[in-house]
C-alpha cells in the first residue's frame, strides 16, 4: 500500500506524458501535433515539480513561523523550461501558418503527397 502512496503521482504523470507523446507522433494535423507537444512538456514539468515537493512543506518564500520549505531548484528549472516551451510553440505555429499558405493544407499526409510530386 505504501508503495502506491509513494509512487502514484509519478505514475499518473508518466501516463500524461505518454498521452502527449502519443498525440505528437500519431496526429496527422500539425496544430494537434503542437498541442500534443505542449501536453508532453507540461507533464514533464509536473514530474520536476513532484521531485521538488516536500510533504508538509510550504512555498519557498520566507515567511514567519515556517520551517520547512519545498525545494526551490526544480521550480527555477521549470520556469525556464516553460518559457522555452512557449518559444518552441510559437515558432512551430508560425511554421504551420506558412505551410498552410504554401501547401493549402496542414495535414501531414496531404503535403507529403505534394512534396513527392515535385
Amino acid at each position, binding site marked *: 500500500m505504501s508503495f502506491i502512496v509513494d509512487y502514484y503521482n509519478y505514475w499518473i504523470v508518466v501516463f500524461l506524458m505518454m498521452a502527449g507523446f502519443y498525440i*505528437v507522433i500519431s496526429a496527422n494535423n500539425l496544430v494537434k501535433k503542437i498541442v500534443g507537444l505542449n501536453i508532453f512538456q507540461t507533464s514533464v514539468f509536473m514530474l520536476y515539480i513532484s521531485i521538488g515537493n516536500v510533504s508538509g512543506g510550504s512555498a519557498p518564500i520566507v515567511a514567519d513561523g515556517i520551517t520547512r520549505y519545498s525545494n526551490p531548484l526544480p521550480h527555477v528549472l521549470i520556469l525556464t523550461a516553460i518559457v522555452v516551451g512557449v518559444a518552441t510553440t510559437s515558432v512551430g505555429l508560425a*511554421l504551420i501558418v506558412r505551410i498552410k499558405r504554401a501547401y493549402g493544407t496542414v495535414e501531414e499526409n496531404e503535403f507529403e503527397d505534394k512534396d513527392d510530386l515535385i
Partner: protein
Amino acid sequence: MFEQHSPVLPIILPLIAAPICILLGRSQLAWLFATFISALGFGISIGLMLTTLDQGVLSYSLGGWEPPWGIEVRVDAASALVLCVVTGISSLVLVYAKESIAKEIDSSQHTLYYTAHLLCLAGLSGILSTGDAFNLFVFLEISSLATYTLVSLASDKRCLTAAFRYLIMGTIGATFILIGVGMMYMKTGTLNMLDLAARISEYDSSRTLNTGLAFILVGVSIKLALFPLHMWLPPAYTHAPSAVSAFLASTATKVAVYVMVRFIFTIYGAEYVFHTMGMDTILLVLAIVAIFKCSFMATVQSNVKTVLAYSSVAQIGYMILGISLVSTLGLTAGLLHIFNHALMKGALFMAVGAVLLRTGSVDIKAFQGLGKQMPLTMAAFTIAGLSIIGVPLTAGFVSKWYLVTAALEQQEWTVAFLVLAGSLLAIIYVGRILEAAYFKNPAEGTTYKEAPLLMLIPLWILVFANIYFGIDTSMSVGAADTAAQWLTQPSSSPATALSVNMGGATQ
C-alpha cells in the same frame, strides 16, 4: 583582464552580438559585425585550446557562485577542440554567406539570418563549454530554435515542412533529455556534471539512473541523427539555404556527438554505460547499420544536397563507431572524425552552394560539365570528396586510419573490414557527381561563370585545411588524443577534480 574570463567569452560574445545585429538593421553592417564577432570567438577558442593542452581544465563560475550551487563553465581539451571547429566553421560560413544568401534568401531577411546564425553559434558554444546538465538543455534549445529559423529561411517551400519536422523531432529529443536530467537530479540532488559523476559513481546500478541515461541517449541520438532517428536530417539539410547547410552539417550534429561523449564518459562513466548497461553493442550495431544504409541511400539520390545529407548520417555512424569501441584509441578516432568531417562536409556544402548560385539547381544533372566551367569550385569539391572517401593525404584518411587501428586493437576484424567497405559506397556516391562534372558534356548553350571570390576563399581555406590535416596530423591528432585521454582516464576522479576546482573558484 579578459584573460580570466576567456572560457565564457565564446558563449556571451555571440549572445550579446545577436541583439546588436538587430539594432544595426543594415544587412551589410550586420554581416561585418557577425563575421568579426565569430572570428573573435575563433581566436579565443584557439587560445583556449592551447591553454587547455598546456594547463588542463579551465573552470569559470558564473555569478561568482562556486559549483555545484552556481553554474560552471568548464573547458577541457575535448570541448576546446570542438569549440575551435564550431567557431572556425562559423566564421568561414559567415564570410561565404554574404554572396550565397543574396540569391537564396529574401533581402529583407538578411539581418535576421545573421542574428539567427549568431544565436545558433552562441547556443552551440554554450553546449560545448557548460559544466551544468540543465544549462546544457537551455543552450541546446537556443541553438535548436535558431536552427529551425535558419532552415526555414530558404525560398523553396519544402524548407517549411523540413523545418517543422525538425522542430517536432528536435523538441521531442530535448524533452527526452529533460526527462533524463530530471531523473539524474532526483537520485543525486545536483546538476553540476562533475558533481553528478561523483554521486552517480556511488550507485552500482539504479533503475532510475538507467532509465535517465536511456532517455538522454535517445534524446541526444535524435539531435545527432543516429540511425534510425535520422529522418529529420536529409530534408532539413537539402532544403535549407546552402550557407545554413554548410554550417549545420559541420557543427550541429558534431556538437550533439560531443554531448553524447560528455554524458557517457564524464557523467555516467564508461564503466557504467558500457559494462553495466551494455550500451556499446547497441551503439556499434546502429553505427554500422547507419554507415551502410545511409551510404546506400546517398548513392541513389539525384539531389546532390540530399546525397551529402545522407552521407552526413553515414559519417556520424563512423563517429559513434569510434565511441562504441570503448577504448582511448576509439574515442580519439571519434573525436578526430568530428574535426575532420567538419572540414570536409563544410567544404562540400559550400561548393554545392556555389553551384546552386550559378546554375540555380543542385540536381546532379546541373553538375554536368561544370569541371570546365567552374574549375575552382569543382576542384575544391573533388578534393573534399576524396577526403570523404578517405584517400591518403586528405584529412578523411587520417580518421579512417585511426578508426581501423582502434578496431584492430580491440580484435574487431569485422568492424575494421566494414569501415573499409563503407568507403567503397562513398566512392560510388562521390564518384557519380564527379563523373557528371568531368566526363559529361554540359547541356547545350549553357555557360556558367566561376563562383565569386568571397565564396571561393572560405571554400579553399577548408580545402587546404583538409589537405594540411591529412599530412601534418600532429595538431589534430594531438588534441583529440589529449581529449580522449582526459575523458577516459580513471585517475582524474571527478571528486578530486571538483574539490580542486572549488578551491580555484572561490579565491
